[in-house]
């Protein structure tokens, strides 16, 4: 066993003096016979043997080992109860070159932190978890742990752990080994010298694997807590070997390479991800723009799936390229996913106050329910564009211009129901003159990704405009309030 030299005296990975402790700086705070001390020693020695001291970050949990940072002369981070493996995840992702150890007790790992450990393991975080299972809550004075044995008395199981009330002990090594990602999972016991030597081997192997970047490693260490067991240290060790290890079988549960095909992410320049590389947006500059003097407010409404929100965005984008201030406010969430959708658009030469439009200058109603719901809100002198050949017979709107455009029918003729919103955009620009047609055309061609659709979009825009050119509008003929000049 030459690779395991027996070390007497203190490992150089421990501080010479425990200066972070208030008093008794030459000894640990652990009780005599506690497994934490032995485990610390095994870790320190393995780190030393592997030459990892400088690279190591120890995450101490909440539990008796909360003060691991008193002892380990490594980088140290203390975590909230149960969160050590999430904290370790953040640390490792931020420092891929570091050796990150998540040191956790059974309450920490298998009760309050169950989700964190399962998911860190499942992601295959390249960290090492040392899971000290002492079947009790040591720090808080011997309450039941998730690993407490059936019948075992604790301060919160005064009649012994009752499976009918508390369930049975959770076997974390087995559980973690059901996942694909972990590369090494072993359970060891601090019951006697033979088993302690095996434990040392496991601790070192886990760290060595992390050093190689192999993936997620965990060693579950069955450990004596003489204080809460109310046993002599020797008896407690024997209990670990004879009783605890019976419930929690020792052995290697996982030891294999992780094989998977990584999916790579294309890299982009900062300007590209920020959307200021000039590709996605045509410049606002360099065009002669009309001077817009007044604000226009729009409400666009219809069924989800009719491209209501996109139509609003196209109008807002066109307004922005016309150097106006614009805002677009959608209905969002489940409403959007199910039945209806609507959005509010404001175009203004000045800074916009409320982006909500209660009385629009222009209503685009892509279906009848929207017309009924919002029609009466339109400002006097405003415009309604309705997706239909004519208004429903019972509906009349006084003092507003109404343009009926069978946008869906026109879109169907073009060959795509989807472009009904673009037909409506064409009609809207013709009916209200609130934005120039050419700018809208530019927006449409710069935003479209699929060339086939672009062609249909352009036709739709054109046909929407032409339809109104040839059809007579109903109602007042004056332009809506606030549009253009």
């Amino acid at each position, binding site marked *: 066993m030459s690779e395991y030299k027996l070390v007497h005296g203190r490992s150089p990975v421990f501080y010479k003096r425990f200066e972070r402790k208030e008093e008794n700086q030459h000894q640990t705070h652990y009780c005599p016979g506690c497994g934490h001390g032995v485990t610390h020693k095994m870790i320190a020695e393995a780190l030393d043997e592997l030459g990892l001291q400088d690279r190591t970050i120890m995450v101490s949990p909440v539990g008796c080992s*909360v003060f691991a940072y008193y002892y380990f002369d490594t980088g140290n981070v203390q975590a909230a109860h149960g969160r050590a493996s999430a904290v370790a995840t953040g640390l490792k992702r*931020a420092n891929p070159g570091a050796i990150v150890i998540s040191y956790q007790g059974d309450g920490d790992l298998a009760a309050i932190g169950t989700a964190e450990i399962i*998911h860190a393991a499942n992601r295959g975080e390249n960290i090492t978890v040392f899971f000290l299972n002492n079947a009790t809550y040591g720090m808080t004075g011997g309450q039941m742990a998730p690993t407490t044995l059936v019948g075992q008395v604790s301060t919160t199981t005064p009649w012994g752990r009752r499976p009918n009330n508390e369930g049975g002990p959770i076997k974390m090594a087995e559980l973690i080994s059901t996942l694909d990602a972990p590369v090494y999972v072993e359970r060891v016991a601090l019951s006697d010298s033979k088993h302690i030597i095996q434990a040392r081997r496991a601790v070192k192997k886990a760290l060595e694997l992390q050093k190689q970047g192999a993936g997620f490693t965990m060693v579950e260490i069955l450990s004596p807590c003489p204080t809460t067991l109310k046993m002599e240290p020797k008896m407690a060790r024997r209990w670990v070997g004879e009783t605890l290890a019976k419930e929690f079988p020792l052995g290697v549960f996982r030891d294999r390479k992780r094989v998977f095909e990584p999916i790579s992410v294309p890299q982009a320049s900062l300007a590209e991800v920020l*959307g200021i590389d000039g590709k996605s947006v045509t410049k606002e500059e360099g065009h002669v723009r009309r001077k817009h003097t007044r604000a226009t407010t729009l409400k666009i409404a219809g069924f989800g799936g009719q491209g209501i929100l996109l139509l609003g965005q196209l109008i807002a984008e066109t307004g922005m390229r016309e150097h106006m201030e614009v805002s677009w406010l959608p209905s969002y969430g489940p409403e959007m996913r199910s039945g209806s959708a609507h959005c509010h658009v404001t175009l203004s030469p000045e800074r916009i*106050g409320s982006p909500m439009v209660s009385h629009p200058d222009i209503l685009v109603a892509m279906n009848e329910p929207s017309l009924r719901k919002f029609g009466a809100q339109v400002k006097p002198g405003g415009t309604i564009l309705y997706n239909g050949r004519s208004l429903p017979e019972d509906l009349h709107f006084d003092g507003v211009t109404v343009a009926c455009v069978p946008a869906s029918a026109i879109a169907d003729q073009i060959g795509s129901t989807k472009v009904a919103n673009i037909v409506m955009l064409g009609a809207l620009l013709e009916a209200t003159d609130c934005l120039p047609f050419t700018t809208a055309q530019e927006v449409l061609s710069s935003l479209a990704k699929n060339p086939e659709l672009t062609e249909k979009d352009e036709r739709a825009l054109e046909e929407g405009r032409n339809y109104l050119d040839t059809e007579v509008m109903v109602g007042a003929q004056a332009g809506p309030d606030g549009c253009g000049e």
Partner: protein
Amino acid sequence: MRQLCKGNVAVVKAAIMAGCRFFFGYPITPASEIAEYAALLIPQVGGTFVQAESEVSAINMVYGASSAGKRVMTASSGPGISLMQEGISYLAGAELPCVIAEVMRSGPGLGNIAPEQSDYFAMTKGGGHGCYRNIVLAPSSVQEMASLTLLAFELADKYRNPAVLLADGFVGQMMEPLELELVEAALPEKPWAVKGNLETRPNLICSIHLTPDAMEAHVRHLEEKYKQCERDEARWETYLTEDAEVLLVGYGIVSRVLRSTVDLARQQGVKVGLFRPISLWPFPSKALVETARRTAKVMVFELSTGQMVEDVRLALGGSKPVEFYSRVGGNVPSAEECKAELFARMEVSV
């Protein structure tokens, strides 16, 4: 060059400009686009996005990456923020900077996804345990979603403390022109971080101080930082307050509505002005007192049953009558509604 951009997306772009390359999150409406765009954009510039198993884990991953000295953020809304509170307390206790974007929805409980401002207390007063504060900034436009995200990263590092971008569903979901410059933030040195190397080996990140004296010293140290922050970091904006008889107060989306309310009221010859807190903590108390000095009355509008209004009353110390109008549940009042309410309280008949 302006781009039409959603508020939530602007947060991610600004975070990237701030040098944030780590995002840990969990989806929730109306904040989800922040996680979605972080997932899309941050890995393309060599960064890391992890969808955590819960907000509890997300904030603790933030804690880990922040311990390593990186600029890091997360985003959520009401229920998720409740789950993050423990972690936020630990971050403040361990003096770790990070940015948390909250896009508020209606509560309590599952509530709904429509906008409210009901997490003002949770964020400004410290929703977790212990004596700590978050730096809280309240954007009211898409441009501010970006500029205040940048500021949040700066202040978080300056004070080694969590900074919160407290937006609401409307500001998060809204699209407006956004102007970004191609500058990358200079990242500050963080000699206290734990990086897994020889220089930082002596460093310790923790919030535990076992003896009462040590703990008191630590809490006093935090208190000092918060006092300095209160002195130096209050931010606000005013609109037509010079001759105002009534001062309207509101933040976030409400301030946008109130700006229109001011215009409407003035069109009818009623002189009102607007005070908009930009930093909710520290609350711009001094500036508010100064601005309100010339007005007869103050009227607070909020999407909660009365949270920020407490800070307004505290600041004014009874020196002015403070009226309060609230809408909740996801209802956002229109400018007309606010004007009608204002006129009723002023006993203006129009």
